[in-house]
């Protein structure tokens, strides 16, 4: 087994969740790395869409922003931002929306708006961007986030984008037909919604991580599935491709 960081394991586990036939709405950062890793390994036919309007893009280096020139230069076509949100996202063309977040709760609702009171913020976060509508208009969503007590919270101060709602049943009540968060991929494990309650439940633990560690880094008392498997370790090829694109990216962006 090759050496790997927990962050690499997270990205690789996320990449594996994507299928060759997916049309994926990609957020910047970890989602972008995971989606491009999938494209460069097991899912060469995957379609990656960035909210800047770039459709079926194949960046050679990871973009720093959602609208780097690289995304347009390697895209099948580039449409306006209103068209992207109207015809492609709201139009129901996206199979998987890939989100990150600052804070998450047990039903995979996300906060990227504010810590503290909205009108008197302790920390003002960037806000929702595309997330509120990605969360309801994509066929399903995958979330990628490193665990930690300040990120995995019992109760969010603000819901920026809906997961399964505050009771786990809101999607049904609000007649949202998309599946919502079907996977939450962290640096320690993978959660999936419980079939009955929609509470995000640990189904797989990454090699080297423990139940105790997961519990310690979670602001609520997390549920484990009846059968928890071990996430297969990264393969040498997965690590090589990921490290290659990250090295190319670092060289390209400078610092």
């Amino acid at each position, binding site marked *: 087994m090759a050496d790997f960081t927990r962050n690499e394991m997270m990205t690789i586990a996320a990449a594996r969740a994507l299928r060759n036939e997916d049309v994926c709405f990609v957020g910047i950062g970890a989602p972008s790395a995971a989606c491009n890793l999938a494209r460069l390994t097991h899912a060469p036919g995957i379609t990656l869409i960035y909210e800047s309007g770039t459709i079926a893009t194949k960046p050679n280096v990871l973009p*720093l922003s959602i609208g780097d020139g690289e995304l347009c230069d390697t895209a099948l076509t580039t449409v306006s931002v209103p068209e992207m*949100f109207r015809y492609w996202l709201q139009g129901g063309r996206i199979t998987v929306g890939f989100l990150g977040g600052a804070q998450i709760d047990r039903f995979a609702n996300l906060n990227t708006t504010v810590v503290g009171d909205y009108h008197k913020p302790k920390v003002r976060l*960037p806000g929702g961007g595309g997330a509120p*509508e990605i969360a309801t208009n994509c066929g399903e969503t995958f979330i990628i986030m490193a665990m930690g007590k300040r990120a995995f919270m019992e109760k969010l101060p603000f819901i920026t984008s809906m997961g399964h*709602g505050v009771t786990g049943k809101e999607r049904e009540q609000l007649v949202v037909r998309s599946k919502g968060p079907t996977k939450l991929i962290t640096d320690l494990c993978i959660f999936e919604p419980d079939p009955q309650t929609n509470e995000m439940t640990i189904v797989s633990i990454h090699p080297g991580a423990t139940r105790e560690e997961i519990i310690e880094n979670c602001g609520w008392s997390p549920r484990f599935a009846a059968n928890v498997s071990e996430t297969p370790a990264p393969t040498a090829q997965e690590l090589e491709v990921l490290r290659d694109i990250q090295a190319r990216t670092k060289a390209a*962006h400078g610092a």
Partner: protein
Amino acid sequence: MAKFLSLADAVAQMVHDGDTLAMEGFTHLIPFAAGHEIIRQKRRDLTLIRMTPDLIYDQMIGMGCAKKLVFSWGGNPGVGSTHRIRDAVENGWPCALAIEEHSHAAMANAYEAGAANLPFAMLRGYIGVDLPKVNDRIKSITCPYTGEKLATVPAIRPDVGIIHALRADREGNVLLEGITGCQKEVVLASKRTIVTVEEIVDNLGTTSPNSVVLPSWTIGAVVCVPGGAHPSYAHGYYKRDNSFYIAWDKLSRDRDGFLAWMDENVMKKGPDAFAVHAKGSAA
């Protein structure tokens, strides 16, 4: 028909204290040179509208131009916070900043509705989230056919819209190419408009009959500012200066450092300072 003006004249004529102002460019073609000119001319009490108020509005807000920000994602993309915006929102420095916050989908639709001369936009959005609780501009309507409830936002019709484009011809027709964002919508939705361009040419050199072109008569002023989108980029002219975006995190973190940088690089400079970033310039 568009007038060809200097950047100083265009801003002096078109942008007034208290205006609502949209400066768009979705990562690409952000009109930084125009933003700097507005800072130099010390405009005040602006309502700044922009989906992603990144460095350009961080600078304008940090220099005290704005009383309100309408936005949907406020950060330094891929880097972190926009410190000056946070300082204004959290601490009221250099002045208090009201915010009206939306999602990207809502703002994109609101610009679209503005361009289409509709009073509002509707979308399948804002479902199960808290933003409508803190933004009373978000309402809803019921479909007269299906009974479905849809979210609404008011159309955006700014007093002034400013964008940066690739080039203009001598009649003032303007070409955009690549990631075109909401720029066409901003120009068509605004009462007054300024378009800065990389160059003015005899022939636009459009390569497709469906190229994104804004006719001269939709534009108030065309201003030639080579490099005027730096540190963002201009498709086919120069690349995004990602290292500047990364460096900005440090430059803008404290008030004194920010003010010193602005004094040196904005207040004491003019639009010509952008030329060094333009295509064909010595880097």
